[in-house]
């Protein structure tokens, strides 16, 4: 059971209040029709899926109902930070 700090509610809440939103910082292509099939597939399906530091989206479904990002270690499951959408993580893979 993860305890996740919601940067909007400013408190730790249990994992069951949240739902997972997948890898963060993936921008929707502005001109999808200009992309090749490979580029579009990359946007739709291909993810980093790292063993280690992962930046990912979470949704506080039974709370403020807002999205935010988290930096989490996918081996230890430790959540190193949470931060609002639109901001950049303080911790990146190189730091750990």
């Amino acid at each position: 059971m993860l305890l996740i700090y919601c940067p909007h509610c400013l408190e730790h809440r249990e994992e069951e209040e949240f739902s997972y939103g997948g890898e963060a910082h993936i921008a929707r292509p502005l001109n999808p029709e200009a992309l090749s099939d490979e580029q579009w597939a990359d946007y739709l399906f291909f993810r980093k899926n790292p063993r280690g530091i992962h930046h990912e989206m979470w949704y506080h479904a039974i709370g403020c109902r807002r999205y935010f990002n988290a930096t989490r270690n996918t081996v230890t499951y430790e959540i190193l930070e949470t931060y609002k959408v639109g901001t950049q993580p303080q911790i990146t893979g190189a730091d750990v």
Partner: protein
Amino acid sequence: MKRYSGFSLLKNALSYHENWQKVWRNPTPKKDYDVIIVGGGGHGLATAYYLAKVHGITNVAVVEKGYLGGGNTARNTTIIRSNYLWDEAAQLYELSLKLWEGLSQELNYNVMFSQRGVLNLGHNLQDMRDIERRVNANRLNGIDGEVVTPQRIKEIAPLINISPDSRYPILGASWQPRGGTARHDAVAWGYARGADALGVDMIQQTEVIGIRRKGGAVVGVETSNGFIGARKVACVAAGSSGVVAAMAGLRLPVESRPLQALVSEPIKPCLDTVVMSNAVHGYISQSDKGDLVIGAGVDSYNGYGQRGSLHVIEHTVQAICELFPAFSRVRMNRQWGGIVDTCPDACPIISKTSVQGLYFNCGWGTGGFKATPGSGYVFADTVANDRPHPLAKAFNLDRFNTGALIDEHGAAGVAH
């Protein structure tokens, strides 16, 4: 390889069972191999076996970072069925089921394959429509299956609660009598023994840490025990597939997540079939030892930690108690997680890659065990001939570019 038989059992009894032949050798790796298989789980060992047996390629090594069959092969709930919706998937899983039916004889190793039947329950009208559709699709593909009523379900599994007053009443089910279970460890051991006897080297406690390439082609793997050369490298690394792919500069459309299961204390025989429910989400069977083997869901988030969140098994146990009220008093013994590599369309990837001589068999997600023989069979063919086996063609990595996905989210046991 000395064959197992009633006679060999008697003969070895005379020497107090102290002189049984080792099940496989523990060789030092050669300098290079025709094929290196990365990952010594069921699928990897089956691939090695069929490479040697069907294609005569015996200069093969299986490189495993832990011990043989110690990953998801040891962690699944051993359910076998082939009632998938789409032709491509149904044919692949049915090939597998047919191989299961002769596997103990083929390997001279008892994999304890038990065709006790599989029920997939429906709890609402849409479930039942989906079940009707899937059973009809199965029958058109020559796969056994029927839609059964709650009364028939009660006959098959007498402890089940078919009361119309329950919160999610059982309205019917699909029933595949040829489905069942097998002994998961025995499958890995049987394939390993068979492959070893044909000359395949099992290299355990050796982790692949790099894939060496030269001019766009594979030349071997870097391991924790040094470099081993190979003309072809076949990766069957389940949850770690993405990590292995990154070693070759490739990306895969898979995400690795923990899938949990749990077993109860052993109890007297009370459930001689497999019961699955997608809607309330749980699946259960009873092992020969007497434990209730219960499958849970995947965690929603990516992870490599081989453990899962408690609330996931809590929901599963709620579902099981709803289906089988009598089991509410059974105590649970152990719980664990395995890392499954889930694909966007809940179907595997059996494919060549953009690197010459590098092949991937992954993305089996939450339902790979049942496919072990078929997966190994078509993958060995793909690797041996450097072109997709006819049944593997649809499971090419390229399907994510073309959009020809095979959506098996409905027939896959676990939602993800």
